């Protein structure tokens, strides 16, 4: 009952005209920008984050959340119609694009929209019941446990976003090191500032995010010279009743899987989609059709995607640790607005928390009512040639960086990170873990130093405490598993050399190139 009471309290806040407007605006702009090639949720949020600075706190968070799931939906639209995915919609490319080839684009888009709605609704129920409960757990966390949780987050994100523990972990560590730049909070010593005054406060998050995800991405697309063929097919949205009936079970299955996977460290939409797709392949009544363009292949993953996108707010708001790069950006937005996410947030800012939860459901409705029927008009975004698009993206990067501190110097920092981001991209180094590492770095250091202080310099504290002990043993298992897999591959191959099939997929076909480029750019 308490949940219902809280939710109605939330709706009171979310249903003000102003907040409704921000929600609709966020969903719409998010979808539009999410549709654009090479701009996944991460780049969309970092582009639009500075624009929300001048908006009141509640509205800004509601709008950002709207941008996030709008971008998520926009992604799946571009995946279904043209097979250009970002990390958040790789799975939608499989059956979704097959349906387009069969001329059932409208049905696929409708399925994705309705399933997202179902997934989002289930996730909100989970969010409103679980988050306060998990907030209680958050109070049990000591410094050592926070450290362990962040480390686990690094490992999981590395694994999920780049598929290779080593690469992702390296980037997370680089991020942590970049986070060290600036004044040390404990001693007041300026570290790694190279005597530059503007580095005393640390490197700006937006500079890193826009450099690595905005500018590097633009240059990579320019290098690829990929020409997109806009989608010109017919779209018939409304399904027949038997078709509609097929959506429900699969979407419900996906919602549950997504809700669960969204909460875990390193979890989030990407892994949830794969899991839901795999589950549909095993459990669905029409499993023989999956992969050839059937409704279940789209419904399950879309629901999981949306559900996980929402439940991944739980660790952020209940414990205060973002579990993936998108949530790390969200956390930055919270902090800019003067709110420290964590166990205290729900108690001290109930209006923000419940308002956000309620607005998510409202956003869901907007997506369903506005975006699904309007999708055919939005596809005209693709008719804009890239030569027009990329100066505009650069312009937004500049304005975004500038407007944080009203400082033109920040644009130089962004340019530097654009260059670094490009190098990373060319070296196959995933930038998403870097962003997470950058945001969590100072927190990790703080908690590590505190844990060491409490334990008088003994590392035993990490093993002795039940929470951190468990989390660290999960990390141990992950490491051992990865090593065993690598060594087994090495021994099995005849010339003791690994010919990874993954590189084969990066063959220079335009679609594969687009696919890999998308997945490189905006990992969760």
């Amino acid at each position: 009952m308490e949940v219902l009471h809280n939710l109605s309290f939330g709706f009171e806040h979310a249903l003000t005209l102003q907040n409704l407007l921000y929600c609709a605006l966020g969903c719409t702009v998010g979808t539009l920008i999410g549709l654009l090639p090479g701009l996944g949720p991460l780049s969309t949020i970092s582009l639009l984050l500075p624009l929300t600075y001048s908006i009141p706190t509640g509205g800004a968070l509601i709008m950002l959340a709207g941008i996030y799931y709008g971008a998520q939906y926009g992604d799946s639209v571009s995946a279904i119609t043209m097979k250009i995915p970002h990390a958040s919609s790789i799975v939608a490319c499989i059956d979704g694009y097959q349906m387009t080839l069969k001329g059932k684009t409208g049905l696929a888009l409708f399925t994705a929209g309705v399933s997202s709605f179902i997934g989002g609704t289930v996730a909100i129920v989970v969010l409103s019941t679980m988050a306060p409960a998990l907030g209680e757990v958050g109070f049990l966390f000591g410094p050592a446990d926070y450290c362990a949780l962040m480390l686990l987050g690094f490992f999981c994100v590395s694994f999920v976003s780049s598929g290779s523990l080593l690469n992702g972990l390296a980037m997370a560590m680089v991020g942590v090191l970049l986070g060290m730049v600036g004044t040390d909070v404990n001693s007041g010593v300026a570290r790694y500032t190279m005597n530059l005054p503007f580095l005393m406060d640390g490197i700006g998050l937006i500079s890193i995010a826009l450099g690595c995800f905005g500018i590097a991405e633009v240059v990579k697309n320019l290098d690829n010279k990929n020409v997109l063929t806009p989608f010109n097919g017919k779209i018939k949205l409304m399904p027949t009743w038997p078709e509609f009936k097929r959506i429900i079970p699969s979407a419900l299955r996906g919602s549950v899987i997504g809700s669960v996977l969204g909460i875990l460290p390193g979890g989030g939409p990407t892994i949830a989609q794969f899991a839901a797709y795999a589950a549909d392949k095993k459990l669905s009544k029409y499993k023989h059709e999956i992969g050839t363009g059937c409704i279940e292949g789209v419904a399950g993953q879309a629901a999981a995607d949306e559900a996980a996108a929402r439940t991944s707010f739980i660790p952020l708001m209940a414990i205060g640790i973002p579990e993936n790069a998108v949530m790390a950006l969200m956390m930055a937005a919270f902090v800019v607005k003067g709110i420290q996410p964590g166990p205290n947030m729900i108690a001290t800012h109930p209006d923000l928390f419940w308002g956000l939860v309620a607005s998510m459901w409202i956003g869901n409705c907007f997506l369903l009512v506005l975006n699904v029927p309007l999708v055919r008009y939005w596809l005209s975004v693709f008719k804009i040639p890239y030569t027009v698009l990329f100066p505009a993206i650069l312009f937004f990067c500049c304005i975004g960086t500038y407007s944080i501190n009203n400082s033109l110097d920040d644009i130089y920092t962004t340019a530097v990170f654009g260059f670094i981001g490009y190098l990373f991209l060319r070296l196959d180094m995933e930038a998403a873990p870097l962003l997470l590492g950058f945001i969590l770095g100072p927190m990790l250091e703080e908690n590590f130093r505190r844990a060491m202080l409490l334990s008088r310099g003994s590392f035993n504290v990490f093993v002795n405490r039940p929470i951190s002990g468990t989390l660290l043993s999960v990390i141990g298992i992950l490491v051992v598993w990865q090593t065993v897999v690598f060594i087994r591959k090495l021994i099995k191959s005849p010339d003791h050399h690994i010919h990874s099939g993954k590189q084969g997929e990066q063959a220079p076909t335009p679609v594969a190139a687009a696919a890999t480029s998308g997945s490189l750019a905006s990992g969760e």
Partner: protein
Amino acid sequence: MNFNNRNFVRGLCLMAIALVFGGVSFSYTMGELSRSGPGLFPLLVSSFLFVIGVLTVVRSHFVDPVPLDYSVKNIAIILVSLVGFSVISQFVNMILGIVFLVFCSTLAGTSYSLVRNVKISIGLVAVAFAFKQFLGLSLPLY
């Protein structure tokens, strides 16, 4: 030793980053584990990163090499246009900065058209004015 192998170069890069950050961390007070100074944590992290770098290099010997491909031209053009935008906005005004950004960055595109650039510039300047008016950003437009 193949400098055209992405995996190998990546390992070297990581080691270099670790060495830079680790090296500089020695210039700060270390303290001890129970009462750590500002240098200890960066040293720990960069040592860990160095190990990862070594492992990456070792691993690259057992995995098929991936060629390194890059083009200097595009990234250079984009960086020049960003820096130019900032410099011009600082010394002249942002409208000119936007025009420069458009005209310079489109050099990297597949085709170049003056008319189109003028149109893009007008569009973006209009957007900038809208931001200033409706979102309250303080842009030094003129």
